[in-house]
């Protein structure tokens, strides 16, 4: 009886296995890179209805974050300022600037300015701004150097592992309370940060939740 399978068929199983390994590796790396917030979110830089420059306001003019985001230390949401907040200065400065037309219109009509949401955590995450800023975690840790951005972009991945990295090692990020809104501040060295951080974590009894109930309810 003639051979049904030619001789090269002996290698087919190995070839299939090798191919499968390659495919699996490829799929895994594609998923881990392209399907995670690092790729899907970070770098997102939408165009806003008003070309508001954080670099100018927070950087050059040195305005405090809380001038506009004034509920950040008392609410879960760091609020987006109302048009009335903008108008508190811009009713005096640059009153006729065409760039500010949407703000003036909103202030007059009462219709909100449609700002585009940049930073996003999923709906099932109950992130709370106030607890972070009141316990020595600066804005910069999640939002990056906003005071250096002409147009704000999504800087960090804000994925679950990003959160947990810090929740597991708060001493690496924690800072004195008076430096929380100073985005440019940095400890002198990594060692200095670790030393200070360990002390603060101990003194303030910082114990960030790492179980599900901390962020999901």
């Amino acid at each position: 009886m003639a051979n049904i399978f030619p001789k090269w068929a002996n290698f087919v199983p190995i070839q299939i296995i090798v191919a499968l390994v390659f495919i699996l590796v490829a799929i895994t790396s594609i998923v881990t890179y392209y399907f995670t917030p690092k790729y899907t979110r970070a770098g997102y830089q939408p165009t806003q209805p008003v070309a508001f420059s954080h670099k100018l306001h927070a950087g050059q003019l040195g305005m405090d974050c809380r001038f506009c985001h004034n509920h950040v230390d008392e609410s879960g949401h760091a609020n987006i300022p109302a048009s009335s907040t903008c108008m508190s200065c811009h009713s005096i400065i640059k009153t006729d600037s065409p760039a500010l037309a949407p703000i003036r219109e909103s202030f007059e009509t009462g219709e909100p300015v449609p700002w585009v949401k940049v930073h996003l955590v999923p709906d099932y995450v109950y992130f709370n701004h106030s607890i972070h800023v009141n316990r020595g975690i600066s804005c910069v840790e999640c939002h990056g150097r906003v005071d250096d951005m002409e147009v704000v972009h999504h800087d960090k991945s804000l994925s679950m592992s990003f959160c947990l990295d810090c929740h597991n090692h708060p001493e690496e990020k924690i800072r004195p309370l008076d430096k929380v809104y100073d985005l440019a501040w940095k400890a002198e060295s990594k060692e200095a940060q670790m030393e200070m951080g360990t002390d603060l974590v101990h003194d303030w009894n910082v114990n960030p939740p790492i179980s599900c109930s901390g962020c999901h309810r």
Partner: protein
Amino acid sequence: MKFTNSDNKTNKTEMSGQRYWKSLDDLSESPAFKDWLHREFPQGASELNGVNRRQFMKVMAASFGLAGLGLTGCRRPEALILPYAKQPEMVIPGVASYYSTSMPSGSENIPLIVETQETRPTKIEGNPSYKPYGGATDIFAQASVLDLYDPDRAKYSKRNGKKLSKSAVKDVLYGVHSELEKSKGKGVAILSEETSSPTRQRLAADLLKKYPEITWAEYEPAGSRNPEIAAKKVFGKDLRPYYRFKNASRIVSFDSDFLKNEAGDLGWIQGFSKGRSIKSGKDAHKMNRLYMVEAQMSITGGMADHRLRLASAHILPFMRLFAAEVLNQAGVMSSLANQLKSLGGKLDVDQKWIIECVKDLLANKGKSLVVVGSQHDIEAQILAITINEVIQSNGRTVDYLSIPENKAKSITELAKSLNSNEVETLIIMGGNPVYNAPGDLDWTSAQKKAGRVIRWAYSEDETSETSDFFLASTHYLESWSDGRTFDGTYVPVQPMIRPLFEGFSAIEVLNGMLGKDTIDAYSEVRSTFDSLTNAYDKDKAFNRFLAEGLLERSGFDLVDVSIDESVVSNIFKSSSKKTPVVDSNSLEALLVPSLQLADGRYNNNGWLMECPDPITKLTWDNAILISPRLAHELEEKFNVSIFGPETRMNDLDANLIDGASKFGLKPYEAEFDRGREMAPVATLEIDGRKIEGYLHVQPGLANYTVVTPLGFGRKKTGRIGEDAGFDAYPLMNSENRLFTTGIKIEVSEKRYKLANTQEHWSMEGRAIIRESNTDEYAKHPDFVDHMGMESHSPPIYGADQDMSLAEKATKTPRGMSSYEFPDHEGVHQWGMSIDLNTCTGCNACVIACQSENNIPIVGKFEVARGREMHWIRMDRYYSSDDSGSNVNGIPEDVQVSFQPMACAQCETAPCEQVCPVNATVHDDEGLNVMAYNRCVGTRYCANNCPYKVRRFNFYDWNKRAIDNYNEGPLGEDLTGDLPSMQRNPDVTVRMRGVMEKCTYCLQRIQESKIHHKNKNGSTGDVKVPDGTIKTACQQVCAADAIVFGDISDPESEVSKMKELDRDYSVLGYLNIRPRTTYLAKIRNPNKNMPNYYKQPYGRQDYDNRYGHGDHGDDHGKGHKDHAHH
């Protein structure tokens, strides 16, 4: 077949003692019920109906194929943030604001604190500043926030079906005003709902003063002013009896459901439960004792220590005998005693019951109290007043408050004027007389005789159908008003939100009729307030009033009263001797406001509709409740099966045992014969007025009383109320409203499907609820340790059993288990204690939880499949005594025990061990948490949960309209944005396919922890003080039965509760170490009473089954002194 027989036999012996039983099927041990028990879940709860897996795959193949194509474009979906244009003051996005207000409910307002999220009211809580209620509310107040967002509420006013603008409505009101000016009120009649609002009363008085010819009538179908009318007859003043249950150690209730259906009930629960909460065996005899004489099986009857079943029509004769006995034994007013005795008539009751009960009352003079249901007539009320005087209750357990006079006419008088064509313009403010007027008035045709009918109401209903003008009302959360609590304390009704639609408040309508230029309600309330306060700075006083939610010391004045024998004696001179006949040929119908919908005003509220009646466990329907004896007689008379289609079930079972394939059964039939109750349809008739309803056998009823809950069977209402239940109002007569004798019944062959949650989650009669008597508890304060399987097994904590509660919670010692358990290292260790001795089973926790945690309703069809979503459920167990009378094996006298059951947050949770995706895991503070986003919906956890408290989202309950679930996205969605406005933004709205359960109100825990840390920034104080966090169920509880807190702190209230000797774990022997534990129930029977019981029936059952076992005493803590037990 041999196997079958022996199997049956063992089952029989094992289960033949008395024991807790949850339903008639359960007790009758129908094989089908057993099959049902062994299936873990009610049939259909976990099945895809009518479609098998292969078909399903075929149909879905196309969708599966397309599933991969939709991924593009989801990388960075654009979302907008819309901030305020002008930042309002005091609003912080993401932080809730709380405002005081109060909810009008008939003769009283319930003081409230309302949580608003960015100005949307989302959750109602009681105002703790009002001490008599202590922050408690009832199910109606809890659910009222849902009414605000009811898509079926009236959105604008109408004339003959056409929209009326707001200014057109003002013109209509001005038209009424001009008519009044012309006629001085002649030909104008106003029928109003009862109100406690001083502003409304003042405006009504203004109307009557200006136009004295107006006919002003008030009507509340289920409310009654009889106690006040009686007090006026006896004392000659306008008085309201106000009870101090806290001071009463002996209470006799004559047909008064004072824990649920009487005005002021929240305060009564508070006082009653204070008298029932005991800390140790030494206190046992300080507990109060409740004697109950009633026709229905009320939740108050469930709390009774001695209960006598008696038709409502026989309550008055019974009270005469009782009062005569009191007077005789006390040796006062002997002529009145003789007069009453001769009136008493013949009653089939044990004289000894009366004699001993009276002895007990008199032995506790000054600490006793007698109450009678307000539905009973003046004579009964006067007897109660007299007895209270003799047993020296006045000023101690009952006070009389001086109330303003009410001159309103009754609906009967108004109907008379209508029928004699005296009314040209009829204005109906609130209420719903076409639906709920007494049947013998024939209100519908009387109303047609009015020239024109103007109707002001919250939603379009039966009455507005037949009215010419319909004026839309605002919700109480949208408008200014005021009111008084039951003791007269002045409380505000302040708006939380601008009116969502074009409605008017009652004050605005009255102002319009008075012809005022501005009809604004705020200034009216302000001027009422100004007249009530004597503060110098009225603005400041008003702001303080709003901040506190009440005006201090504004209650009605206490009045000292004493009774004059001749006055009472005169009243009884003309009373009739006749004792009405109540037997199988002439039944008594007792109409009770249903426990979910009251008199029908909450009919279109989904939360209330789906809340199971605490006693019958029916949802979405009412039923004609009949006693087992009557059921038996009806079965014979009409040759129908009422107790359940037993033969068919047996056939099914025989098939199973014979080895017939399960798939050979007709699943449809099997499924629709149980948990969904196939109730026989019956007709009740009196004087030619007929109603058709569905029979439900209810133990504990007076033999020949049929109970028909009100509030169902509305003909025009919203989507929820439509087709739910039957209307019992036609049986109501205008004289003796709520009960009526001479009813005839007919039972038909037809069956109606009821959705009953009763048989779901049975616990097979183990030591789930532990009970004892005061005597035994005083002797053996540790009796709970000698009950349950754990008292027969080695201690689960092994050598570590003497560790403190806090240590046990944090170290989770291995004990006798084969597994090591991880420690709990969190700052707090949450735990809960529930006192079964004070819980009345009122269901308020169920609705509070629903409102706080975004729990959806699922509709009747899905409830019937066991898919209701309540995170906390109220389990109701009956227990009975073998010596008592029974019919068909169903006892007539039962004891009722309630147990609120929610996720117990087991430290070694069985659900966690079976989750394949770690969606349910433990956190460091001892909570069993659900990560919804991880859940893939295997439902293994629900299978492994011993308490059966996990709930599965079989469909998108939150997104789709009821009864459209299975059509998915193709079906009808929930209507508009309204329903989602009520949602709590701090709790995830769960989607299809995930499991959910009680979280101990995790959002409140996190909120408080964050708030505490924010406040204490860098001090290192991270421990939330005890009492800061109250779970929704704890907050609402009028009986203070639920305590929540940190058990790692030995000083916390919950730790102290758990240290009490009555503390036990349900199913503790499973070594699941629940964080929710219960305090055993104690009953307080009187040794000399004829129906004295040595042990509560439930306990007798337990002792019969387990108590007399013969075992060595070398294992387990419980066994050391088991021998003398």
